[in-house]
């Protein structure tokens, strides 16, 4: 019972092969095995979204995924959003420029959820406040009251469209 399982994942472009317990949650695999502590745990009922990362390009709550379920997958965490040269992703820049964070604990999850939201959009127009609020319904923040988070995501969307604010 509970023997280890082999798993191979690519995380932020780097390949990892491990033998891990089946019950090891993806969030703990990222944090404790790979030392990528930017992904955070905030609850135990899949509500808060602080643990959000991308699996094969889509947002997931990594506390509700077993690492073994990700065998063969490409995972992106907050650490993977910064360019190799240290260049900030438009979302990171948007959060910084618009005071979209205070304690910073929910922020990595927010940014990853926002990344999925922006990638998922079809259509050309700027993203509305309603769309952002709905798109981030799976991410809780206790500090900011969300307003500046919405601004940050809208700013990132504009920047990605090549439109200057």
């Amino acid at each position, binding site marked *: *019972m*509970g*023997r280890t*399982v082999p798993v191979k994942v690519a995380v932020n472009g780097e390949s990892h092969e491990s033998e891990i*317990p*089946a*019950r090891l*949650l993806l969030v703990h695999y990222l944090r404790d095995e790979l030392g990528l502590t930017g992904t955070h*745990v905030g609850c*135990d*009922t*899949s*509500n808060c*979204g602080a643990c*959000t990362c991308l699996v094969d390009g*889509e*947002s*997931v*709550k990594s*506390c*509700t*995924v*077993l690492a*073994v*379920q990700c*065998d063969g997958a490409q995972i992106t965490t907050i650490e993977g959003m910064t360019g190799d040269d240290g260049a900030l992703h438009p979302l990171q820049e948007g959060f910084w420029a618009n005071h979209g964070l205070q304690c910073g604990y929910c922020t990595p999850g927010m940014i990853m*959820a926002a990344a*999925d*939201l922006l990638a*998922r959009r079809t259509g050309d127009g700027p993203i509305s406040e309603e769309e952002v609020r*709905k*798109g981030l*319904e*799976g*991410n809780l923040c206790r500090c900011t009251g969300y307003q500046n988070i919405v601004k940050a995501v809208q700013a990132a969307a504009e920047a990605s469209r090549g439109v200057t604010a």
Partner: protein
Amino acid sequence: MIPAEFDYVVADSVDEAIGLLSDGGEDAKLLAGGHSLLPLMKLRFAAPSLLVDISRIEELRGVQAGGDTIRIGALTRHADLQERDDLGLIATAAKQIADQQVRNRGTIGGSLANGDTAADLPGVLLALEGSVIVRSASGEREIAAADLFQGYLSTAIEPGEVLTEVRIPALAGYGFGYEKFNRRSEDWAMVGVSALVKAADGDCEDVRIALTHMASTPLRASAAEDALRGQPLNEQTIAAAAQLAAEGTSPLGDLNASPEYKRHLARVLTKRALTTASAV
């Protein structure tokens, strides 16, 4: 936060999954998206000894629409359904499940097999009069929605059976409405109502109304249906029918809703869902 220990194996085919389930015995469970099962395991409300991961089985994917029956593979995620406006009620309901991260993992097969009366899709399946196909070592059978949900977290799916497909009628000519009432975004429904109406010359030719989270299984609001079927479709007839939506129900209260409030919500939400479904 941490599940109890278990063994884990990946099945490459449905037949393999069936075999692994039977080898694993009573405490073996299937794992698709894991968003019904893993939350329970993390709180140690469930502790299966073996998880059989069926998420790689290609046969269980895909949506075939276009005829009278829509066939949805068990591994179809809520995120896949939310994009499918052509699928009507089920896509509208899928869009309102939890949040995008959960929808990116949760599957229709997993959700229906879990049989949670508070979830969105069981009531939708009941209103659609859909069915599921399950396969076991002895072959396949079809379970109608009315027979599928038997109690709290309890369905007619037997140990050793794998839900492979969901079938729903295309219901051409039916309008639909889905009303999910919750305290705040991302919550489960306090009460939910699925409604389908077929209008013919301003009259209600057919109506189906299913109630979510009003009992240990989803329910048809048959008294309300009977009151509307055959009637002209207008504000008054809808309101009168909706008044009967809670007939025969005795929901248990919880923190957010007393039994009286739930019955009241059933009536209000039925009126709203019928209004949308009738485009009145």
